[in-house]
């Protein structure tokens, strides 16, 4: 495995992207930083720019307006990177499939930019912090 992926696994820095979410998953992500779950002890850190990130945490169904920005963010993220789709919305649009302003599902949007993107799915509405941490750990172990 490349040394870059090895480094990513040790202490992944994540950038959070909301592409049309109701906020539940976003709040559960921020919950992971708080004392009960405290993911910073695993080296997982939220960063302010995609250029510093090893992984993207994407929440939301992928609205048309947000899709424009998401493609840009993915291009800016340093490679290699893992895209975690958090919640039922980015995994497959779910209850929003009939929406006129929905460009998702998100894996379709990401693959328009990079057909070989590494994408991990963490379903739930919202997935509990334990589920998110488990999803991240399992994905990194599988890389």
């Amino acid at each position, binding site marked *: 495995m490349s040394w870059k992926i090895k480094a990513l696994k040790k202490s992944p820095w994540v950038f959070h992207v909301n592409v049309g979410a109701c906020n539940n998953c976003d709040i559960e992500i921020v919950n992971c930083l708080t004392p009960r779950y405290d993911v910073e002890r695993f080296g997982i850190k939220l960063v302010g720019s995609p250029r510093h990130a090893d992984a993207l945490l994407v929440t939301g169904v992928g*609205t*048309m*307006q947000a899709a*424009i920005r998401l493609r840009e963010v993915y291009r800016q993220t340093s490679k290699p990177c893992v895209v975690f789709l958090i919640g039922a919305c980015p995994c497959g649009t779910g209850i929003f499939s009939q929406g*006129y*302003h929905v460009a998702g599902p998100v894996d379709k949007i990401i693959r328009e930019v990079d057909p070989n993107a590494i994408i991990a799915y963490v379903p739930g509405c919202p997935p509990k912090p334990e589920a998110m941490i488990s999803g991240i750990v399992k994905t990194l172990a599988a890389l």
Partner: protein
Amino acid sequence: MNQEELNNKLLEIKDKLIDIEQKANKRIFLPCEAENTYAVNKFLFEDVPLRFVIATGIDSDDYFEILYHYSNDETGCVVTVKAFIRDREKPAIESIAPFLPGAEWIEREIHDLLGIDFKNHPNLRRLILSDDWPEGVYPLRKETKK
């Protein structure tokens, strides 16, 4: 002001309305034609006065409707002005944003979703549809939904 006072106050603009309908306990509907809604809204917001809640745009086949919802917080009564816009080709109505800044966004939204023009609106730009959404396509219009 209590319910009786409110009912009496509404009689002052009865000439601009088609009717005063009491639908449920504490729910009053005031249907009127589009040309009179500016005066009716101004009266409700400034003279009564009531708190503006939101406006609802509806495509009702033969005409468009805009419902302006107001609340009288002392009694919990919701007063709704039901404006009928009969011209389907070029639907237009006078904007109430000049005296009611709280209505600015919802008029922009109804413009985006139903294509109704709000005359004299201070800032009638796209609000909630994406930058690449095609012009002239109105998602809540019946023909678009089909």
